């Protein structure tokens, strides 16, 4: 299969235009594709908005034509289908912040998955942070906090559902990225992408194996533990959250015992109140575990699932320990008890963002099939919750978020991209429909939603970005070093920890960001702000624009985005990168540069199963927008959606929203 997502912007608009033209022609005989219905009173207006993360317009168009996506096709025929301009950079936390606030990064302050602390040059997750309690009573090794630790959402700007709340319009937002901890609200909301597991990471699995643990090397996103079975039994420990009640800050853990049958492919795990008997290849139900900080006084409840990959030799995967929705250790919903209400209604569910365990697949813990099965479980949980909300949806807005169209596509793009370093006809034969299967599932979700809300409701399917193959990596820190902008001393450890800042002018952090080492902003700045910095930024941007991939001779960057110029009407933020790199399709910044490290080569093949991506240029990865109303704008953008939803309820968007309503008024 060719790079089906690779329709050029012009091709796409032509196809979309033809579709619109066909609609216009058919309108005479069929009453029109876009409906013009008298508007219901505000109090009874309904809007169903489905957020399909990463839904790619090229793939949708291709599979719609092949008849695989009847409900998406029906929706497009009822109204419009447009490519949707994402954020710059088109990364999920940034893009979803655009959607939520109707603002661009210069307004909401999220520029990347990863921001850097200019005082330490260290990375941190951009959307939230946790600060420990400052007032603490110390009793020997025991530390009793006299105040709650603070979890802060860094995204600025009011969410559209809170603007709706001010005007009396109810909204339920079932899972939303870039909203952890949830923005205070009277509406029902529950957070997704950006919600950590109980360890405070984006998801840290545990893997217990009889194989030597060092066989797996340095595992990112998980821990591998060696277990020694004796007479068919072994003791092990599941590591949980940091214990802030101890001076040592050691992690709280839960001991457990594993029994493996001598001959049969079964094992039993005895952990707290559970005795879980699993056959090879089976998943457990959710287990609710208590991690004690101070026995009987303080602890945290977490949930996890187990997967017995193999009994002989023993290979047991335990999912990241998620925040328990029935008893959340950190805020994940508004009102506070909404997560528990959902749990009570539809059963326990993943609460961490990026619940599909891509790391386990990348690290060779999961096979392709095992990952797909786990991703399906995540999807089934979401469908259950969506259907529950749909059943009680009377008026206002119902937003539901689905992540499979992002994370499965990240991992399986290699199956539909013949130019991928990992592509093979055998792989395509075996797993070539993995992405299509996800799209089909989402199409069914849309069908369920459309049937339930009726014809008068506004129905919208949107995605934060599309997809591109990720074939080659570009290591920006290595390039900066070899171009003389960054001086790194020899030695071990992260590159930026070894930087000679007095002789360094710029550095990379995040997937698309480049920062000047600015005097007064960075701790050891060397470039004065003003003309010197502006000249440097122009110089680096010009050089980057000319960088070509030595393997293909192609330019790797479509645009280099000067933020000072772009956001000139707003005061500069400390977190704002000075340049944002917009990669061409097929190229992306390296994993190493994203966290301030440096790869061994500037250009390298991407041999990770993470083979599709969207951290490119906005125009390389348009998102999708399908609506049962006519969209008047030929090139709508994510920031237009919040004002559009508000306009549906006759609410004037707040002044800081940059987008415009895009639907024809009816």
């Amino acid at each position, binding site marked *: 299969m060719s790079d089906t997502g690779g329709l050029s912007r012009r091709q796409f608009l032509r196809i979309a235009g033809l579709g619109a033209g066909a609609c216009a022609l058919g309108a005479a005989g069929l009453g029109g594709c876009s409906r013009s219905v008298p508007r219901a009173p505000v109090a009874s207006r309904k809007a169903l908005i489905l957020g399909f993360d990463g839904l790619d317009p090229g793939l949708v168009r291709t599979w719609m034509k092949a008849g695989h996506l009847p409900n998406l096709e029906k929706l497009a025929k009822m109204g419009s289908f447009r490519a949707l301009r994402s954020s710059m950079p088109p990364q999920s936390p940034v893009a979803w912040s655009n959607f939520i606030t109707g603002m661009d990064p210069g307004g909401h302050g999220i520029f990347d998955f990863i921001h850097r602390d200019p005082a330490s040059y260290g990375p941190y997750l951009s959307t939230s942070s946790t600060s420990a309690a400052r007032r603490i009573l110390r009793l020997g090794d025991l530390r009793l906090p006299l105040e709650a630790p603070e979890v802060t959402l860094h995204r600025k700007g009011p969410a559209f559902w809170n603007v709706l709340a001010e005007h009396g319009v109810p909204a339920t937002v079932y899972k939303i990225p870039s909203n952890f901890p949830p923005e205070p609200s009277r509406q029902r909301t529950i957070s997704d992408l950006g919600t950590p597991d109980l360890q405070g990471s984006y998801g840290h699995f545990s893997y217990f194996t009889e194989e030597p643990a060092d066989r797996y090397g340095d595992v990112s996103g998980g821990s591998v533990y060696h277990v020694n079975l004796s*007479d*068919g*039994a072994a003791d092990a420990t599941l590591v949980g959250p940091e214990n802030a009640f101890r001076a040592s800050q050691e992690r709280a853990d839960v001991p457990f015992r594993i*029994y*493996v*049958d*001598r001959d*049969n*492919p*079964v*094992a*039993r795990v005895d952990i707290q109140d559970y*005795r879980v*008997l*699993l*056959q090879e290849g089976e998943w457990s139900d959710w287990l609710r575990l208590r991690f004690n900080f101070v026995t009987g006084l303080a602890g945290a409840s977490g949930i996890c699932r187990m997967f017995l990959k193999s009994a002989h030799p023993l290979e047991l995967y335990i999912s990241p320990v998620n925040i328990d929705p029935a008893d959340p250790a950190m805020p994940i919903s508004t009102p506070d008890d909404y997560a528990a209400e959902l749990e009570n209604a539809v059963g326990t569910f993943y609460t961490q963002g990026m619940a599909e365990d891509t790391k386990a697949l990348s690290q060779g813990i999961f096979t392709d099939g095992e990952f797909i099965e786990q991703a399906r479980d995540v999807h089934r949980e979401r469908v259950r919750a969506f259907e529950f909300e749909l059943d009680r949806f009377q008026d206002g807005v119902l937003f539901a978020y689905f992540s499979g169209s992002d994370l499965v596509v990240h991992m399986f793009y290699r199956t539909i991209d013949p130019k991928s370093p990992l592509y093979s006809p055998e792989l395509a034969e075996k797993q070539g429909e993995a992405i299509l299967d996800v799209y089909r599932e989402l199409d069914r979700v849309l069908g369920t939603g459309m049937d339930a809300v009726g014809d008068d409701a506004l129905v919208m399917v949107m995605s934060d970005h599309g997809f591109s193959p990720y074939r080659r990596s570009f290591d920006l820190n290595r390039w900066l070093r070899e171009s003389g902008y960054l001086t790194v001393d020899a030695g071990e450890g992260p590159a930026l920890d070894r930087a000679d800042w007095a002789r360094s002018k710029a550095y990379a952090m995040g997937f698309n960001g480049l920062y000047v080492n600015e005097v007064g902003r960075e701790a050891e700045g060397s470039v004065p702000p003003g003309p010197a910095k502006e000249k440097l930024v122009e110089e680096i941007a010009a050089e980057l624009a000319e960088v070509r991939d030595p393997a293909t001779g192609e330019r790797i960057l479509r645009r280099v985005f000067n933020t000072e110029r772009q956001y000139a009407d707003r005061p500069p933020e400390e977190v704002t990168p000075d340049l944002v790199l917009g990669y061409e399709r097929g190229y992306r910044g390296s994993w190493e540069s994203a966290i301030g490290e440096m790869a061994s080569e500037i250009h390298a093949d991407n041999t990770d199963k993470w083979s599709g991506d969207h951290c490119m240029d906005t125009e390389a990865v348009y998102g999708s927008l399908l609506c049962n109303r006519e969209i008047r704008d030929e090139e709508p953008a994510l920031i237009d959606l919040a004002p559009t939803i508000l306009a549906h309820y006759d609410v004037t968007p707040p002044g800081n929203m940059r987008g415009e309503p895009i639907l024809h008024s009816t």
Partner: protein
Amino acid sequence: MSAIAYWLRTAAGWLVSALMSPGPTAGLVVVSALTGVAVMAAFKYTADRRALRRAKDAIQAALLGIVLFRHDTRVMFAEEWRLVRGALEYMVAGLRPLAAVIIPMVAIFAQLELYCGWQPIPVGESALVTVQVTDDGLGDLFQAELSGNAVEVETPALRIPATGEVCWRIRADQPGEHTLTLDLGGTRIEKSVVAGMEGRAVRLSPHRVRSGAAEMLFGSGEAPLPADANAQRIEVEYPHALVAVGPIRMHWIWATLILATIAALIVKPILRVEI
């Protein structure tokens, strides 16, 4: 002793069975109300009312003394001691009525636990079945087999020689009372298992064990395991049940205590009970 326990359990079993017949919720309310009434009746007919009155007066006097003489530490301590002594006397005075009801109550509550402490395996869901073998049965561990009617044994056996256990996971596909058959060293042993039957009061037998006094009093009534079998215990891991009292879900014992207390407070003035 075993015979008394057996008859007590049998009587409690009949009583609870009759009371639970309208359904689990109604049955629990009736049992709780009768418990409250029975405790009040026991206090009326067996308690030393004068001793109770004396103890209560002593407690009241001590409380009054504490309020009036809070500026005088010596008197305060003396009154606090009188308060403790009064409370102890009150408890001693309450022992006789409690002794009168405790044994039947334990027998009834043990039966109630079988109705309200567990719930049948939901149809289509799984439960663990564990067999504990005797020391003599360790040799049979690796030949143990489990089968059942209307019950699917989902997994092969997991044998644990160190603990003398063998377990399987079962799934019931139809509601009703089914039978599991264990083949252990050529001896066939049956165990009941219940699935579904939502909304009905069902007496469950989480385990079948060898005969014993405790089993005589607290057991489910399922026949003890045969003496010649090499099994010590067969256990079906039913899901725990919780009772909804308004918006709060709790163990049935707390619900019973709350309801029994309400019933006792209602009948206290009617029976003119001194407590």
